[in-house]
């Protein structure tokens, strides 16, 4: 699979049973549609998908790394501040940092007392070097 942003080859990363496709050059992340559902089901954050709204973006259209068709622009997050690319059949593309922002937005709504925001923590675990872990 090629990165929709910079055409580099995507590599797959797995940590604690979460699998993402990652571009080593631009640090963008591709999530298969099944994988996103899995992530969200695990966190009870399925409401996140409900916040997705199609939009006609000015940002350059990108192509799906699986089917090479143009992806749709969607807005995500409670206040609709994050612009993502979605292939309805295959998954979502997040530019650098967007995945973390999106998940933070998706989980803030469902956070109850005692519930840790483990998705963002997990992403921290993937991308924050071992030495800098604050736990």
């Amino acid at each position, binding site marked *: *699979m090629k990165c929709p942003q910079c055409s580099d*080859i*995507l*590599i*797959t*990363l*797995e*940590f*604690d*049973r979460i*699998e993402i496709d*990652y571009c*080593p050059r631009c*640090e963008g992340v591709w999530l298969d549609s*099944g994988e996103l559902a*899995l992530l969200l089901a695990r966190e009870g954050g399925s409401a996140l998908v409900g916040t997705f709204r199609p939009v006609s973006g000015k940002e350059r259209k990108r192509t799906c790394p699986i089917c090479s068709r143009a992806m749709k622009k969607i807005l995500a997050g409670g206040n609709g501040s994050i612009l993502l690319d979605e292939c309805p059949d295959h998954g979502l593309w997040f530019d650098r940092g967007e995945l973390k922002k999106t998940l933070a937005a998706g989980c803030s709504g469902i956070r109850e007392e005692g519930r840790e925001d483990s998705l963002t923590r997990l992403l921290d*675990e*993937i*991308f*924050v*070097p*071992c*030495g800098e872990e604050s736990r």
Partner: protein
Amino acid sequence: MFWSIIAANKRKTVLLIAAMGLFLVLLGAAIGVFVAGDYHPYAGFAGAGIAALVWAVMLLASLYASDSVLLSISNAHQVDRDTYPQLYNLVEEMVIAGSLPAMPKVYVVDDPAPNAFAMGKSPKDSHICVTAGLLAVCGRDELQGVVAHELGHIMNRDLLYMTVAATMLGSMLLISDVFLRSFRYSTMRYTSRSRRSSGKGAVVILIVSLVLAILAPILARILYFSISRKREYLADATSARLTRYPEGLASALEKIGGSTEKLVAARSVTAPFYIVNPTKQSLHDSVFATHPPLSARIKVLRSMAGGAGYLDYMKAYIQVTRKRQALIPAADLKGAGKVEIRAANAAGPAAGLTAAESRRRAGDIMRAVNKFAFVTCQCGLEIKLPPEYAGDTVSCPRCKRVHSVIRPGAKATGAVLSASAAMNASAAVRPESVAQDYSGPGHAGVQQEKLNPGKWQTITCHACGRPYEISPSFGSRKLVCSGCGSLILFSPASEAVHHKRG
């Protein structure tokens, strides 16, 4: 060998081809008369001719191209001793046990649903396919049972019949579909015409041809499906005898039947080839079922108390299904010796794998087949590199350690073994263990290890003998051997306890 069953299978194949040919020609004639009979006196012959042509093309296709067509429909990737030794060696073992004349080609099907099928016109030219999902959930004993079942189909000459029947069924559906379409198109024309032309005769032809067109696919289906059911029991009997361990297949069937994954690659025409019908999970017995109910097959296998031979299977079969008619003709049972049931190898993966976990395992097996390189970083992050990845090194996005990439490449086991020996002299490489990698305990598709959280642990790659020290903070569920690329999966000790035993 079931010689009389093999002979009967050959006879039935010829009969089926002839009967279907005759049926198609009649159908073609009826369509011809119906569509254009009023204008051309020879329309019936033309219709018959066209149908005969379709039949001949279908027959040739089913004899010469069907394997490759069906394999490509099914997303199958061929593997050999180098690319997937665990599976290839296991097939080879069973081929030797069944004294087949040639090694079948072995394929892994890119599908997370556990299933398997075989194809081929003769035991000299056959194909055996298992899905990545099957490799993910089955232990060695279970996989062996499934492989032996498929070899049973090959040995009993079931596949030629099934291939021809599948293609013939396809062509019948095609022709009757064309007919019903033309019927819809021409009814209006027909009613306006009926008063002035032959009246009664035309109505009779219309009814006959309609009945033929509707019946053809139904008849074909019943015939084809009812025959493939008995074959499943026979192949199960062969599997029990070759593996000498009926519980292996029984437990595999249970896992296949219990899976919630839907087989993506399955079409109804290819359904009879699979070990468990992939299109419908029907628990009850119906005329349209290509396979006998799974529960009955499992029960028969588990009722084999005395031994693993054909006689034991027969006894269990009669006891479970209460059928009087002989499954295996008496002539074939002569000289069928006593076969002792062997002890179990180590247990396979836990029966209670979650759907997500087995899907991920299946994905990794498919990546291994597609020559991905795997790197497990000391920080616990697993990095999977597609063959297109150009660099010789990869830096871990989490901890920035730089790893060199060992490609599985064409040279695979043997060559990598020496390369790795040169690269890392400290790794204990034991070449003699390569030959036994597949007979290591408890792993089929991949090596299975239990993880003891919070403790240091030493494990050894079964394929190349390289030792690993697993740190107490090891966070990953798997490790890819940097010596030979073999996949080693870890399950927490608690998970493996739930393994079901009959």
